[in-house]
């Protein structure tokens, strides 16, 4: 069993994502997210080298540009604009949540062990684990954060995880589908970013933990 | 010719027996109280007197009151024709147990309505009590008759009361049980002691007398006569039951049977007079318990009949 460069990049990205859970500072989160995404772009590039597919290169560049530069820039701008720099945390404390994230990181290795990879038995295990771990981390992030903006981060991490999973577990998703997904994510981020400002405007905060008006009596 | 004779005797007994029964009871009671008492035929004189008088009715009443006594009377007459209370009774169509019981209910229902017509509280309270009693006593009467029906395998009273089989001990026992049940439930049906005191003078404790409180003149005559006739019918049935308990009864010819029957009815009247002199009226709340005993008597009779059927 060999560990490829792709897998190393992926695992690094997953660990970086785990670190996001540990901090409540939005800017730190953003930076960590950008780094994590960059590693994913690197992983894509490595995979492109491995399978010598030019299409993947294009995607790697797109990810690097859009997800690790444009989106963080946008949110950084939004943070400044909203004057919110720190999340309040929900359910469990951040350090504890980070430990949980790391636990889930290791759990994902156990969960993905049995996944048969098209590249042959044993191959792609770490990649799958990284992907699943990212999904878990993202979910955890969404669960343990109160601010709307952090929930978007969580969602982005989940999206990253799924992308990683697709990258490592399949041989070449159709390009059109990949692009469509990327576009959707982008639009989604834009829409939710827009909503962010609306929430700030209407409620004078972006704490979604307080949005509990709509419920059963 | 014999048919005509039968009819004549029958009509005569319908007219005379009720009055004599009533008279016997009164006479017995008077004698036991060390009074001479009215003659046995006194009820006849009473009725004649009543039918000569005019009626006074409440201005609240509508036609229901007079209609009720009329229909109740007619109903009891029909019953007298249908029910084999006398063994020399002429032919009548199918006299079904259930029909007989419900024809009695017919009369009772009209009496109840009549008592409610005046808007008087006495009549209404007694009607309410009468309805309560009937709830308990109707099953008793019905089961007493049904016990005979079960034993003789028919719901037609004609068949039951003309049964001529070689009598066994079971037969006698069932006849006696049914007779007792019919007799005792008749005490309730007829508002006699210990359930109701027909000679009481306090409206609040009366049952039957309060229901007819507003009646007078011919109307009262009808009611009184119907009541007396009803009594004879019940006593007739009961006395026949007792008589048929003796195997020898079937061997007698029809005249002696008829004579015994009449003697039986008057004997029962005598017994009632005796009873009424010896016991007191029960408190209203204790009455249901008394009727419960009667009902269980009927039940025992029916169960015995079923048991006899199963053993047979």
């Amino acid at each position: 069993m060999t560990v490829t460069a792709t897998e190393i990049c992926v695992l690094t990205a997953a660990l970086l994502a785990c670190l996001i859970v540990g901090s409540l500072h939005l800017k730190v989160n953003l930076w960590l997210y950008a780094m994590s995404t960059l590693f994913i772009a690197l992983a894509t590039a490595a995979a492109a080298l491995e399978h010598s597919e030019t299409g993947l290169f294009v995607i790697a560049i797109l990810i690097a540009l859009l997800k690790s530069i444009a989106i963080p820039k946008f949110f950084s701008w939004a943070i400044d604009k909203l004057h919110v720099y720190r999340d309040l945390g929900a359910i469990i404390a951040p350090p504890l949540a980070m430990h949980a994230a790391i636990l889930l990181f290791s759990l994902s290795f156990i969960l993905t062990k049995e996944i048969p990879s098209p590249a042959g038995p044993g191959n792609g295990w770490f990649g799958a684990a990284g992907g699943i771990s990212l999904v878990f981390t993202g979910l955890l992030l969404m669960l343990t954060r109160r601010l709307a903006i952090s929930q978007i981060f969580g969602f982005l991490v989940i999206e990253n995880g799924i992308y990683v999973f697709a990258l490592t577990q399949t041989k070449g998703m159709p390009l059109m589908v990949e692009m469509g997904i990327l576009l959707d994510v982008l639009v989604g981020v834009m829409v939710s970013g827009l909503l962010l400002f609306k929430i700030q405007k209407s409620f004078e905060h972006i704490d979604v933990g307080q949005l509990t008006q709509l419920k059963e009596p | 010719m014999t048919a005509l004779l039968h009819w004549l005797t029958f009509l005569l007994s319908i007219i005379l027996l009720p009055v004599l029964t009533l008279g016997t009871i009164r006479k017995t009671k008077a004698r036991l109280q060390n009074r001479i008492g009215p003659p046995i035929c006194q009820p006849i004189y009473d009725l004649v007197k009543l039918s000569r008088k005019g009626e006074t009715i409440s201005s609240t009443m509508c036609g229901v009151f007079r209609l009720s006594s009329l229909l109740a009377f007619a109903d009891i007459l029909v019953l007298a024709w249908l029910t084999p209370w006398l063994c020399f009774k002429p032919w009548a169509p199918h006299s079904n147990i259930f029909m007989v019981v419900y024809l009695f209910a017919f009369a009772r229902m009209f009496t109840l309505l009549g008592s409610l017509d005046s808007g008087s509280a006495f009549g209404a309270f007694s009607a309410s009590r009468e309805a309560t009693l009937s709830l308990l006593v109707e099953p008793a009467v019905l089961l007493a008759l049904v016990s005979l029906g079960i034993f003789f395998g028919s719901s037609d009273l004609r068949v039951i009361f003309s049964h001529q089989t070689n009598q066994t001990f079971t037969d006698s026992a069932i006849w006696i049980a049914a007779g007792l049940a019919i007799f005792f439930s008749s005490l309730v049906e007829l508002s006699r002691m210990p359930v109701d005191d027909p000679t009481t003078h306090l409206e609040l404790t009366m049952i039957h007398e309060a229901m007819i409180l507003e009646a007078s003149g011919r109307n009262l005559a009808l009611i009184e006569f119907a009541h007396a006739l009803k009594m004879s019918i019940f006593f007739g049935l009961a006395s026949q039951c007792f008589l048929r308990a003796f195997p020898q009864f079937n061997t007698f010819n029809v005249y002696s049977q008829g004579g015994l029957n009449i003697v039986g009815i008057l004997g029962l009247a005598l017994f009632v007079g005796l009873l009424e002199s010896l016991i007191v009226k029960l408190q209203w709340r204790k009455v249901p318990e008394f009727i419960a005993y009667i009902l269980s008597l009927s039940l025992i009779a029916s169960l015995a009949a079923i048991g006899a059927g199963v053993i047979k």
Partner: protein
Amino acid sequence: MNFFISVTAIPLATVILSLTKLKVEQLRLVVPVMSWLQFGVLTFLSLPALQNNHSFLTFSVDFSIEKIGACFLLLTNFIAAASITHATCFFANEKLVGRGEDPQHEKLYYAACALFVTAMSFVFLSDNLGLLWVSIEATTLFSAALVYFSRDKHSLEATWKYLIICSVGIAFALLGIILIFASSQHGAIAGGSLSLRLLVDHANELQPKLLQFGYIFCLLGFGTKAGVFPLHTWLPDAHSEAPAPASALLSGALLNCALFSICRVTEIIQVSGHSFFATFLPISWGALTALAASFFLIHQVGIKRLWAYSSIENVGIMLVAIGLGSPPLFFFQALNHSLAKVALFLLSGNIIQSAGTKELKQIKGILQVSPSWGITFAAAAAAVTGMPPFGSFVAEWMILSHCGDLVQRIAAGVLLFALALSFIAVSLHVGRILWGKPKHQIAVLPTFSSTLIPLLLCIFSLLAGSTCLPTFFFD
């Protein structure tokens, strides 16, 4: 490419028209026409598929359609056209009760609506699982704009929950699709494929474990979008906060899209021979959803929340139909549900305008306010709760009578219970609304145009149940 243009041309034109400086009154005349035109175009396009029973009509590489898909496509566009037509009247009345001052919002609504409907159409048209996913995600994004229409705190909250929960759910669906794609790469199809037709054809050769997990994730993902219990949490909020015509679309069309996606994926796994999994899971989950939703119906306070939960209940029933492996049955139930539920939502919109409140307790005596509304409302409520002679009775009866083995029979029992409970709960609320004396000043007087569309929908629902119309789907 031609195909692509023909499908998107009219909606794009609508979008452009809506974003120009056209007056909103003019737009109200144009948009319904456009939507009916679009319905016509799509009918024309899918006509061959409707005539053929079992063959696919291929438009281009990734786009094809078969009979049931075409039926769904037409249903969705029909519902959309009806809803938009009613919306024009609805928004005109909205002015009367002092809401919706900004005409820009309404114009945006029409634009978003056109895009939303197009995205939904692509759900039925796409043969490619990836594109299917993209379309579903697009519906979420576009409909978010519809939910956010009234731009108050509540609608904002509803939109946020809708967006986040559905996006997370849909993300899982994507994971599921990737797993299915991975399963196809294990020797079944060279290089793997996302084409549904290919996947169904090669279902036996797919890697079973991956397929199974892919199915689970898809069920979870699309189930979130469809509102199965306990993933339904966003649904009552979104449905009650959106303006009535948009709620109608969400309930009558969007849920069908999500369920249709589940149906397509289920088809693969049922053909693959792991049918136990693909039968047991949707049936039991569907029954559970219906049961839970019927309980939710009991203590409802909001008129539109009531219908939202009723939609969830129907989603449960449709999921059972999917689990039974009968797409026509699923479609028939969806058809009836959509017709009746859209009528209900549209009428509820009218009633809310008239009563000035969404609270069930405050609304009384609608039968006195307007017998035509009242009777149509009662009829639609009867239709949605599965009363004869409406179509849903026949559909539910067929679903119940299809339940054969033990698990299915238990599910049928649960469904019977849920149906009874939901009928009782719904009619309790409906009775309270219809009967009695009106509590409020009547703000909007009932007009012919505000009753027309719901009435027509009810009549269609009636025809679906009391004529031989359904035999068309069951050939």
